[in-house]
């Protein structure tokens, strides 16, 4: 084992039941974990539960966490897995599929009737992202929202880097197709020229 990472020192303290160490790690990672769960599930309530469970698992599984690396990727992995589980459970609930799809398609915040064009485009992109397969949406969230590298995403999701790349490529392609249908891309292309 290499030199202990600062997170690792806190993980060691977790192993003996140090709640303050958990508090330090919570403060450090709470926003990243919450927004990742929210971006994947698009459900604030689910994101809260997933955040809570993620940090609880950090505490109860501290014995099995490496101390020479940051704890962030481990937390992302747990949050992503819990988010996937939550979505799959929602899909399995009979009679609620339409409701879930509607929620996935809906924007998180209501916007005024006369919203700016940019807001409309953002909403279109959010819907397009929500339409992506779950595995692809997860890669998109980790890459674009959390700015994680291909290697980091590969480690978190335990998939080859090539798969991460191909999912990003597929996601971009899908988004371009969906946006083109809505004529969002040409407008924005002009905006950026």
């Amino acid at each position, binding site marked *: 084992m290499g030199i202990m990472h600062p997170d690792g020192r806190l993980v060691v303290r977790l192993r003996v039941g140090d709640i303050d160490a958990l508090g330090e790690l919570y403060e450090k990672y709470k926003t990243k974990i*919450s927004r990742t769960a929210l971006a994947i599930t698009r459900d604030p309530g689910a994101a*809260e539960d997933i*955040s*809570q469970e993620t940090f609880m698992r950090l505490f109860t599984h501290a014995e099995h966490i490496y101390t020479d690396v940051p704890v962030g990727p481990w937390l992302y992995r747990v949050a992503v897995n819990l988010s996937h589980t939550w979505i799959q459970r929602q899909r399995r609930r009979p009679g609620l599929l339409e409701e879930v799809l509607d929620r996935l398609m809906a924007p998180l915040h209501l916007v005024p009737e006369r919203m700016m064009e940019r807001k409309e485009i953002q909403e279109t992109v959010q819907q397009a992202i929500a339409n992506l397969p779950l595995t692809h949406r997860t890669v998109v969230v980790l890459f674009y929202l959390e700015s994680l590298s291909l290697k980091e995403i590969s480690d978190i999701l335990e998939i080859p880097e090539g798969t991460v790349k191909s999912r990003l490529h597929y996601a*971009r392609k899908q988004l371009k197709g969906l946006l083109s249908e809505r004529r969002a891309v040409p407008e924005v292309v002009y905006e950026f020229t």
Partner: protein
Amino acid sequence: MNSRETQTIDDLIVQALQAQVKDVQPPSRIWRRVRRRAMTWCVCRKPESSPGLKVNLAAMFHVESPFFPSTGRIRNDSVTMRMLELRLVGRAESFFRFV
């Protein structure tokens, strides 16, 4: 897809995702719940080795009794701690009926 299109798509995705989670701050109740669950887990897992946690947990749950006052020093002996454990796991009421 050329590089300009790719860049545009990339920018759009980043803007859309950031707008989606903009101003999202985890509510403080998440930490309160995590903390309470973690403390309860500690007490249940190692009841014999965490008297300090039990005292804190008792205060958090507003547990009061002649055995473990909310103010002042708590007796750190096995009987008191066992009583506290029982109280904390919600079995104290039934326990007291048989005392």
